[in-house]
């Protein structure tokens, strides 16, 4: 006998992600899920944003790593609300981990929440956490072929941050080829180049955040 099911196999994560999303929207918190390879500069771009925006918005950060609280300690030095999740082996954050974190993290008092995912360009792409947008962080020394090699995350992201642009003279980095690849996968992807080291491009990154904040708030 046949039983028709028609059930999305990943629905368990989707359902919890929607619950997270509802909680964030009820409290007017705008949430960004930062995804990138280990060492791309996810923590650095968050630091750069906090330094420039913390007088305007109440900011918090949820950090995801397999081990250590090093990233959370870096962020905490900037005086913002921080929580470290140690996945102890899981290669990505999922909605359930965020739901559990929200029980002990005062997200209700925030305007802007950054979730820094585990360093990984593959798995985080498919796991909705309840965020407003995914931001993919890549860095110049990684080379220009990431959008072609890891299409799902570039398809699902709203913004690609190209970090470490100050190193471009030392790497044979074809920025135009990479942008063409990225736009081929996702024509509506915003692209910003910056250097957390020199500060170049950081204003563009924070301007993008401000625009998204205004947009979300005016959707109410």
């Amino acid at each position, binding site marked *: 006998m*046949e039983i028709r099911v*028609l059930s999305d196999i990943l629905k368990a994560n989707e359902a919890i992600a929607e619950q997270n999303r509802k909680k964030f929207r009820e409290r007017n918190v705008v949430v960004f899920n930062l995804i990138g390879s280990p060492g791309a500069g996810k923590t650095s771009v968050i630091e750069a944003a906090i330094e420039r925006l913390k007088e305007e918005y109440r900011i918090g950060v949820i950090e995801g790593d397999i081990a250590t609280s090093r990233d959370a300690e870096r962020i905490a030095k900037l005086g913002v609300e921080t929580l470290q999740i140690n996945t102890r082996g899981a290669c990505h954050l999922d909605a359930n981990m965020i739901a559990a974190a929200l029980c002990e993290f005062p997200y209700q008092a925030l305007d802007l929440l950054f979730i820094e995912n585990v360093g990984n360009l593959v798995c985080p792409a498919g796991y909705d956490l309840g965020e407003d947008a995914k931001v993919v962080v890549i860095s110049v020394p990684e080379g220009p072929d990431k959008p072609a090699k890891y299409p799902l995350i570039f398809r699902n992201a709203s913004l690609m941050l190209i970090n470490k642009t100050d190193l471009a003279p030392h790497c044979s980095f074809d920025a135009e080829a990479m942008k063409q690849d990225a736009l081929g996968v996702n024509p509506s992807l915003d692209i910003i180049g910056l250097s957390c080291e020199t500060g170049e491009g950081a204003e563009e990154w924070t301007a993008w955040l401000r625009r998204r904040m205004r947009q979300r708030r005016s959707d109410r």
Partner: protein
Amino acid sequence: MHELSIASNLIDIVKKAVEGKEISRVTSLRIVIGEMSMVVPESLEFAFGVISKGTFVENARLDFVRKPLVGKCLECEKEFAVRDFLFRCPECQSPGVEIVSGRELLLESIECEQG
């Protein structure tokens, strides 16, 4: 990607679907896998084989229905097979393309024996 946890989710869904029904054996599961689901059928089959041992779905066969990645142009409405994840209309070159199929990861149906 994460075929083991996906296999585990699959077993949970099957368990719920057969609840309250007089089922003696689950013979097969029909699964729709999209090209852009990033799940590899052979890996899922392997993971399922491992994780279903000793459960009520042990030895169930997985039948895969593979869905290609198909886009639809938002400008000229042409539907086309998306190659190499390039989302550009081959007809009018517009970059505005929505995905019609290819993202699925769905348990469509369960074949089982009553008794």
